[in-house]
């Protein structure tokens, strides 16, 4: 037997002579004492013997290298081909148009006044039902998105009504969420959506009033913060509302002030969860997608990047006993390389597998007018970047060779490694601690 190469140790945590052990393949998190740690290092001793079954079950100990390699291969096979065991999540863009003008919008180059029409939304319904029946899916979750999705509400109601009706008759779980800038969400609209399966509204707020209004003004430059807060107040007792936000070095320090303000307004502890993420680069103009924009944002992964900011926001949320969407210790289940997973349908009915590729038809993997995906889908599906990872890297199951979009931004192709090991080395021990705090405090 041997120790898994995917084990990560956090020493002397949560107290002296205690250790956290996290396995990146099985995602097991265990706490051990000094004696068991020494037993594990020597692979012998009474404590090891006592706990051997549990250590094997959690993947901390494996039989040999061959067994571990087989399990890793099986892990990637499941990720790629068994996503139908997970909820079938489809994002639907009702429009590419938006009433905001955010500097960092990743759809900047593709924003157009295109709205999903009735013919297309009917085709979307048919495509979804065909897909669900073919794959025998038991759970369907739709996310409406844009542009600003509430600039075109008819497809939201139509598609959801039909899907809810079909799901009831077919014994399938169905629900949907809306990701909105928060400027057009009102109580009567929420009532209407609740009748057809609305589960959650996610509103984007980028910090306190000043920071948010700078980042996310209306198209004509007018501020949007106060209107959004009022709109949230109008719906918070009807439906789950989550807040997501984008940050860079400039606005990050305003996030605690946003939390203070939400608390003062009586909203903070009524909100469902919080998710803040660094702003990322985007593809270039439509005719030249590889001319990437906001490339400096990639620096949050480098030596002097936003590690501390990422962590301090999570700690701030935890300190206030707020719900984190995740501690951050997630598997990067890239939809591009997963069969059927993470599908996004744009207002024209084109299908994409990564939201950062939206609006560039050359990267679309299909069309709701055809039941089957196109050749691009198979090209993406067949990418196995993890195969090129160094054998000694403990992060391979979580990272899989990196984000495929980042590979395109860095290498102009989707299949190379986009290795961020330095980032992982720095941030993962802290995320393991956060995961421990989250699980033990929220238990």
């Amino acid at each position: 037997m041997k120790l898994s190469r995917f084990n990560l140790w956090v020493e002397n945590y949560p107290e002296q002579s205690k250790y956290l052990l996290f396995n990146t393949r099985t995602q097991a998190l265990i706490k051990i004492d000094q004696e068991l740690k020494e037993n594990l290092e020597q692979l012998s001793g009474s404590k090891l013997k006592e706990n051997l079954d549990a250590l094997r079950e959690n993947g901390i100990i494996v039989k040999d290298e061959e067994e571990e390699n087989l399990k890793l291969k099986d892990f990637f096979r499941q990720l790629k081909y068994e996503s139908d065991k997970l909820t079938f999540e489809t994002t639907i863009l009702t429009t590419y148009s938006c009433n905001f003008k955010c500097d960092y919008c990743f759809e900047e180059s593709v924003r157009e006044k295109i709205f999903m029409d009735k013919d297309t939304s009917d085709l979307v319904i048919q495509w979804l039902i065909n897909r669900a029946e073919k794959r025998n899916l038991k759970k369907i979750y739709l996310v409406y998105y844009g542009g600003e999705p509430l600039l075109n509400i008819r497809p939201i109601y139509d598609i959801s009504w039909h899907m809810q009706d079909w799901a009831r008759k077919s014994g399938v779980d169905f629900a949907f969420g809306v990701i909105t800038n928060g400027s057009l969400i009102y109580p009567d609209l929420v009532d209407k959506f609740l009748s057809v399966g609305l589960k959650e509204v996610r509103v984007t707020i980028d910090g306190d009033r000043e920071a948010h209004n700078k980042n996310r003004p209306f198209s004509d430059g007018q501020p949007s913060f106060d209107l959004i807060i009022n709109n949230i107040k109008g719906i918070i007792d009807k439906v789950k509302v989550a807040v997501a936000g984008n940050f860079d070095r400039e606005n990050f320090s305003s996030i605690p002030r946003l939390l203070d303000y939400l608390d003062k307004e009586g909203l903070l502890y009524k909100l469902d969860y919080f998710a803040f993420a660094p702003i990322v680069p985007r593809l270039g103009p439509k005719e030249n997608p590889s001319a990437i924009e906001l490339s400096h944002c990639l620096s949050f992964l480098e030596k002097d990047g936003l590690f501390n900011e990422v962590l301090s926001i999570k700690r701030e949320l935890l300190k206030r006993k707020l719900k984190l969407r995740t501690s951050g210790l997630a598997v990067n289940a890239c939809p591009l390389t997963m069969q059927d997973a993470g599908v996004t349908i744009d207002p024209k009915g084109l299908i994409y597998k990564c939201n950062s590729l939206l609006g560039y038809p050359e990267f679309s993997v299909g069309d709701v007018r055809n039941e089957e995906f196109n050749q691009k889908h198979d090209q993406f599906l067949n990418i196995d970047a993890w195969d090129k990872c160094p054998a000694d890297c403990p992060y391979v199951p979580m990272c899989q060779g990196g984000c495929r979009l980042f590979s395109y931004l860095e290498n102009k192709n989707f299949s190379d490694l986009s290795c961020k090991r330095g980032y992982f080395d720095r941030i993962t021990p802290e995320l393991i601690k956060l995961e421990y705090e989250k699980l033990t405090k929220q238990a």
Partner: protein
Amino acid sequence: MEVIKKGSDNVSEVGPLGCCFPVGTENLRIR
């Protein structure tokens, strides 16, 4: 030894999954 979170060979049980790169950020889907 205390198991804080049970591990699994089964990917559908190990979550949270999702387009969530890089680790530590929530996802790339936030506009």
